[in-house]
């Protein structure tokens, strides 16, 4: 079971397209599109959103994302009128980036709070984190990307997923830029391409495991889905 997502949009196509995109990176997450009006028009439909929340909830709760103003109101109203309003959270986040970040976090089995925080943080791309403090537990490894697309969307999502849930802070550095491995967007914004050498550094109890997993992923050319 994972946290479910509901995408509330004025447009059915927009919600469906985004659900499709996010599902590619998070195949086990229930991502339900709730877009448009029943007659096919542009707008948000309260009844549809309520039904979507019920479908998205597999027991671990739901995070709702929205596109424009009144979609937020419909989403919040739907949550307020649920039999258990504490089972769902509406998050103020960029619709596309927030959904992708939330989906990847949910795929890793994260708690609902971590999922909505991932979405909320997606607006602030952390392309340049301060260098990690050197501690005895810091582990480092240099890896060369051989896959065709480098750290593009899917590989970035796989990388974030492979370290999600580990007790380790993991950063990826390419030349002068450093990104948190938790953030798909930050990883993508590094712009690492085929042939680039990235530095993987990790601290924490499971730092070794984290570095090993990233290495395995990179060496498999991001072909093998990581064990969760």
């Amino acid at each position: 079971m994972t946290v479910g997502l509901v995408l509330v949009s004025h447009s059915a196509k927009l919600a469906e397209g985004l659900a499709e995109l996010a599902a590619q990176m998070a195949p086990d997450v229930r991502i339900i599109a709730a877009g448009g009006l029943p007659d096919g028009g542009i707008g948000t439909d309260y009844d549809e959103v309520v039904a979507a929340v019920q479908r998205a909830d597999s027991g671990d709760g739901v995070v709702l994302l929205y596109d424009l103003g009144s979609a937020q109101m419909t989403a919040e109203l739907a949550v307020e009128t649920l039999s258990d309003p504490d089972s769902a959270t509406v998050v103020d986040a960029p619709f596309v980036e927030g959904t992708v970040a939330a989906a990847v976090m949910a795929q890793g089995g994260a708690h609902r709070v971590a999922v909505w925080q991932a979405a909320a943080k997606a607006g602030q791309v952390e392309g340049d984190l301060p260098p990690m403090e050197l501690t005895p537990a810091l582990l480092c490894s240099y890896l060369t990307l051989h896959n065709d697309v480098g750290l593009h969307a899917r590989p970035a999502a796989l990388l974030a997923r492979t370290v999600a849930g580990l007790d380790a802070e993991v950063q990826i550095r390419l030349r002068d830029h450093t990104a948190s491995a938790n953030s798909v967007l930050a990883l993508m914004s590094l712009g690492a391409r085929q042939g680039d050498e990235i530095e993987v550094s990790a601290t924490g109890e499971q730092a070794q495991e984290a570095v090993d997993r990233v290495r395995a992923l990179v060496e498999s050319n991001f072909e093998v889905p990581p064990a969760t």
Partner: protein
Amino acid sequence: MGCMAEQVTRAVIEAAGVVAEHRSELIELDRAIGDADHGENLNRGFVAIVEALAQASPQTPGAVLKIAATTLISKVGGAAGPLYGTAFLRAATKLGDRSEVDVEALVEVLRAALEGVQARGKAVEGDATMVDALLPAVAAAEVAAKGGADIAGVLAAAAEAADKGAESTVDLVARKGRASYLGERAIGHLDPGARSTALLLHAFAEAAQ
């Protein structure tokens, strides 16, 4: 003398009539700054409310408002559905299952509706929204109630203040909803939500006469 379910039902039906009458006007106001759906949506909602009330014949004022709320939420797209829906829902919750609305309860109901709209839309005074009509309306209702006005008097005072409040949105830059994308270009336009709020209060005041 208070209002029973029957009078509240009549007031809501009166409101439906006013919304139907002003449907085109609201569409035009919304066309200037938004997506031109306010009049159509609100009218669809109130037509559905009248049907729902006829079917359910609710027995308390709170039950009347609850039907109005759930119908608006389900039938009215855009921001107006959740906003008016929340207003009516909070008003219904405030009344609970009491059988009669007196002046004191009316003021509380108006206050609850305003707080609901503010919580839902997060607009403050001066954002060029329905809050600009509803906020002075509630303040005027409170003053009128303190001055000893009856229900019709309180509602008339609220409606009049809502008119002035709605007119004030003409000079404002919209900061919420679709109109906020217009920036300075929204100046010179009456906010359709503020206008419909004033219209609804006028309808309620008229029904209370």
